[in-house]
C-alpha cells in the first residue's frame, strides 16, 4: 500500500470533489427547468407542473424520460457532424468554465491564476454552439437566429471583459479565489464596482441568451431560431446548457461582487456553502423574474444599447478605477 500516499489521497479527494461539483451543477441546472416553470407560474396566476411528486418536484425525471425516448432526429438536409457538435459545445463550454469558481474556502475544482480569463475564453466559445447550430440546420429561421447570436455575442463580449477589469485592477489578480479574499479584507465589490456589476450582469444575461436578450431564439419572431431543427436529447443539451449558463453567471456575480462564500458583515463564517448557494439562488431568481416581466427589445436596439451605453460605461468605470488604484499606490 505504499503507493497510497498522502499525495494520492489528496488527488483522489480532489477528483471526488470535482465530480461532486460537476454533478451538482448539472443537476441544479436541470432542476432549474422545474424551478423556473414553477416560479413563472406563481407570478402568472397559474399552477405550473405540479403533478409528479411533491409540488411537481420530480417533473425533471419525467422530462428526462421523455427526452431520452424521443427520436434522435437529424434532418436529412443538415450538416450532420456540425449539427451534432453544436449542442455538445452549448452544454460543455459553460460547464467547464464552472471549474474556476471557488465555492467555499476548501471546495472548488481548479484554482487557476488566470481564472477570469478562462471564463472569458469559455464564454467566447459558446457562440460557436449557436453559430454551428444555425448554420448546419440549413434552415432560414435558424440562420437568422445564429446571425443575431454571433453579432450579439461579439458586441457583448467586448464590454463583458472590460466590465470586470475594474475588479481585477482593484484586487490585483485574475484568480477568483484571490478576488474573494480581497473582498473579505475590504468592501464587497458591489459598492466600489457598481457600474462594473451592472454592465457585467447585462452582458451575462446576453451571453446566456436569456430574455430579454434572447433575440437569437425569439419565439415570436424566429420560432426558436437557432435550435428550431433540434429535438430529443440534442435539444435537451441546449436546454440544460442554457440553465448551466444561468447558474454560472449567477455564481460569478456572487464571487466577483458579493464576496463569494462569505456572509454579510462576516456573519456565520461556519456555513460558507449555504451563503454561496443562497446568494447564487437569488441571482437565478432574478434571471427568471426578468424573463417573466420584460418585453424583448428589437435586435438593433439591443446592439445600440450595448455599443452606445454599456461600452462607454465600462470604459469610464475602468478609467476611474485605474486612476484611483494608481493614486492609492
Amino acid at each position, binding site marked *: 500500500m505504499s503507493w497510497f500516499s498522502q499525495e494520492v489521497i489528496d488527488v483522489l479527494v480532489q477528483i471526488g470533489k470535482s465530480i461532486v461539483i460537476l454533478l451538482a451543477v448539472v443537476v441544479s441546472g436541470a432542476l432549474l427547468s422545474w424551478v423556473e416553470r414553477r416560479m*413563472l407560474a406563481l*407570478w*402568472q*396566476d*397559474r399552477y405550473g407542473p405540479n403533478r409528479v411528486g411533491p409540488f411537481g418536484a420530480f417533473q425533471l425525471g419525467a422530462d428526462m424520460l421523455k427526452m431520452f425516448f424521443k427520436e434522435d432526429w437529424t434532418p436529412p438536409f443538415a450538416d450532420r457532424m456540425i449539427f451534432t457538435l453544436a449542442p455538445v459545445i452549448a452544454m460543455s463550454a459553460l460547464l467547464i468554465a464552472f471549474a474556476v469558481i471557488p465555492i467555499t474556502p476548501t471546495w472548488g475544482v481548479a484554482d487557476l491564476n488566470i481564472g477570469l480569463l478562462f471564463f472569458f475564453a469559455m464564454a467566447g466559445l459558446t457562440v460557436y454552439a449557436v453559430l454551428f447550430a444555425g448554420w448546419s440546420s440549413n434552415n*432560414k*429561421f435558424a440562420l*437568422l437566429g445564429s446571425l443575431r447570436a454571433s453579432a450579439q455575442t461579439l458586441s457583448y463580449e467586448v464590454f463583458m471583459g472590460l466590465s470586470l477589469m475594474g475588479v481585477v485592477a482593484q484586487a490585483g489578480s485574475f484568480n477568483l479565489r484571490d478576488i474573494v479574499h480581497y473582498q473579505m479584507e475590504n468592501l464587497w465589490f458591489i459598492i466600489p464596482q457598481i457600474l462594473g456589476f451592472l454592465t457585467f450582469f447585462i452582458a451575462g444575461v446576453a451571453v446566456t441568451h436569456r*430574455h*430579454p436578450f434572447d433575440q437569437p431564439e*425569439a*419565439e*415570436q*419572431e*424566429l*420560432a426558436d431560431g437557432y435550435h428550431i431543427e433540434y429535438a430529443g436529447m440534442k435539444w435537451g443539451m441546449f436546454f440544460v446548457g442554457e440553465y448551466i449558463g444561468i447558474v454560472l453567471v449567477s455564481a460569478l456575480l456572487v464571487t466577483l461582487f458579493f464576496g463569494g462564500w462569505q456572509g454579510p458583515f462576516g456573519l456565520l463564517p461556519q456555513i460558507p456553502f449555504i451563503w454561496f448557494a443562497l446568494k447564487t439562488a437569488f441571482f437565478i431568481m432574478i434571471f427568471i423574474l426578468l*424573463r*417573466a*416581466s*420584460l*418585453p*424583448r*427589445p*428589437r*435586435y*438593433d*436596439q439591443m446592439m445600440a444599447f450595448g455599443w452606445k451605453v454599456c461600452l462607454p460605461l465600462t470604459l469610464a468605470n475602468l478609467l476611474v478605477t485605474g486612476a484611483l488604484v494608481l493614486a492609492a499606490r
Partner: protein
Amino acid sequence: MTADQALYVPSYTADDQDVVSELNARFGAQAFVTQATRTGMPVLWVSRDQLLDVLRHLRDLPRPYVMLYDLHGVDERLRTQRRDLPGADFSVFYHLISIERNSDVMIKVALNEGDLNLPSATGIWPNANWYEREVWDMYGIHFSGHPHLARMLMPSTWEGHPLRKDYPARATEFDPYSLSVAKQELEQEALRFDPAQWGMKRQREHEDFMFLNLGPNHPSAHGAFRIILQLDGEEIVDCVPEIGYHHRGAEKMAERQSWHSFIPYTDRIDYLGGVMNNLPYVLAVEKLAGIKVPLRVDFIRVMLAEFFRILNHLLYLGTYIQDVGAMTPVFFTFTDRQRAYTVIEAITGFRLHPAWYRIGGVAHDLPRGWDKLVRDFIDWMPKRLDEYEKAALQNSILRGRTRGVASYNTKEALEWGITGAGLRATGLDFDLRKARPYSGYENFEFEIPLAYNGDAYDRCMVKMGEMRQSLRIIRQCLDGMPEGPYKADHPLTTPPPKERTLQHIETLITHFLQVSWGPVMPANESFQMIEATKGINSYYLTSDGSTMSYRTRIRTPSFAHLQQIPSVIRGSMVPDLIAYLGSIDFVMADVDR
C-alpha cells in the same frame, strides 16, 4: 378627402339621393338603372363601358367616395325575382363609402355568361386588388388590367369557381376524396413560392435576397396565415401575404341554410367575436322581414356585444404584448376573459360561440341574478386595465418596439379600406356606433377613443380606451335595462310565435312549416354594417323569396387589414412585422370566412 386633416363626419344619411343627382348630372339619367332595396343606400346599375368612369367620378367628386368598402359578385342565373333589373347572368357590385358625407352608394354591373370580363378598379382604389382576385376565384370573372389575377382563397390547383350556383355545395355531391402521393406532391409543389410570379427580383446589384416563408404555421401569425418575406438581412424589402388556409366557404353555406339555421355559422366568422357576429346578420334579416325589435332586445344585444368586444380586446392585448416579447400579461388577460365568460355562460349557456341572437330577438330572457354577475365583472375590470397600462404598456422597451412602427395616416387607411381601431388610431373619428347608430346605440353615453400617430402603439391604446368605454356601456345596460319582451311579436321571427298554435289549425300548420323549413323572407336585398371587434363587419343579404338566402356576402374587416400589410411594412425589420401583426387584431377565420 383632400389631405390628412381631421375630417368632420356628419350624421348618417340613409338612401342619400344627392349622389344620384350628381351622377345623373354628369352621365345622364339614362346611364343608370336604379334598384329599390332595403340596403339603406342607392343601388345603381351601370353598363360595363361606363363603369370605370362612374367609379372614378365618384372617387373624385367633392366630398369623394374615398373607400372601396366592398366588391364582390352574385351569380344571378337562378334568381327568379328580378323585377326591372338589367338582364344578367352574373353581377359585380362596388360598395363605396364617403366619410365626409357619411353615406354609401352601391354600383352594380351586369355580365353575361359568355363574356365575363370587367376592367380592373385597382387604379382607383388599391384595395380592389384582393377583392377582384376573390371574385375571379369564386365566380371566374376576369378583370383586365389587374396586376396579378390569381386565386385568392382557393389553392392555385383548384378547379371550378365555388360560389357559382352550378358548383356543388356539399361534399356528398362530389366523388369521394382521395389523396395520392402524386397529387400530394403536386399540391406541395404548387405551394412553392416563385418570386418571379410576383415580379420580385432574387438579387440586387450587390446582394442576394433571402425569401423567408413565415407561416402558415408560425407562433405569431395568429392562425393559418402565410406571409412570404423578401429579406435583405433582416430588412423586409417586400412581402406577399397569402390567405385562404382557413377558408370554409361560409358564404356558400349560407345559400343552403335556412335564415335561422345560419346564425351559428356567423359565430364562427370572427371566432373571438361571439354574438357580435350574430348582430349584423340578424339586423339585416330583420330589415328584410321588416321586424322592429323591443327596446329590451336592443339593450340585451348591446350588452352582450360589448362583453364580446372586451373579450376580444383582452385577448388582443395579451397576445399583442406577448408578440413584443413579454410573456406574462397574456395569462392575466386570460384570467379576466374567464370572468367575462362566466357571465356569458350564465346568460347564454355557451362560451365561445353562443349563437344566441334570434331573428327578432334573443334566445331567452336574462336569467335571474344576471345583474350581480355583470356588476361583479364591471367592478373588477377597471383596476386590471389600469394595471396592464402601467405594468406593460408604459414599459419603455415596449414603447421602443411599437412607437413609430408600421404607421400609416388616415388617407392611406381609407384607401386600403381600414376600419376599426386601425382607422381611429390615425385620428379619424369614425365609429359606426356613433356615426351610424344601430341596435339602439344612440341610447348610450360613451366616447370614441382616438389616437393620432397611426402606429402599432396607438392602435393598442385605442383598443385599451375602447374596453373602458365598453364597460361604461355595459354599466348603462345594467342600470337601465328596460322591462319588456325579449322577442318581437312578428310572424317571421325565429323560433316562430307559438301562443295560438293549439287553438287554430292554420296557425299550427304555419308554425310547423316555419319550424321545419324556416321562415320565408320577402324577396329583396338588405344590408347591415356594425362596428365589430376588429373593424366594420357587414352582411349583405339577397333574398329571392325563399327559406334560404340567395346570396350572403360577408364583408370582414380583417381581409382588408391584411391586404394593407406590404404597403406598410416595406423597409422595416422582421421584429417590426411581428409587432405590426400583433397590433392589427385579426383572426384568420375572419379573413377567409
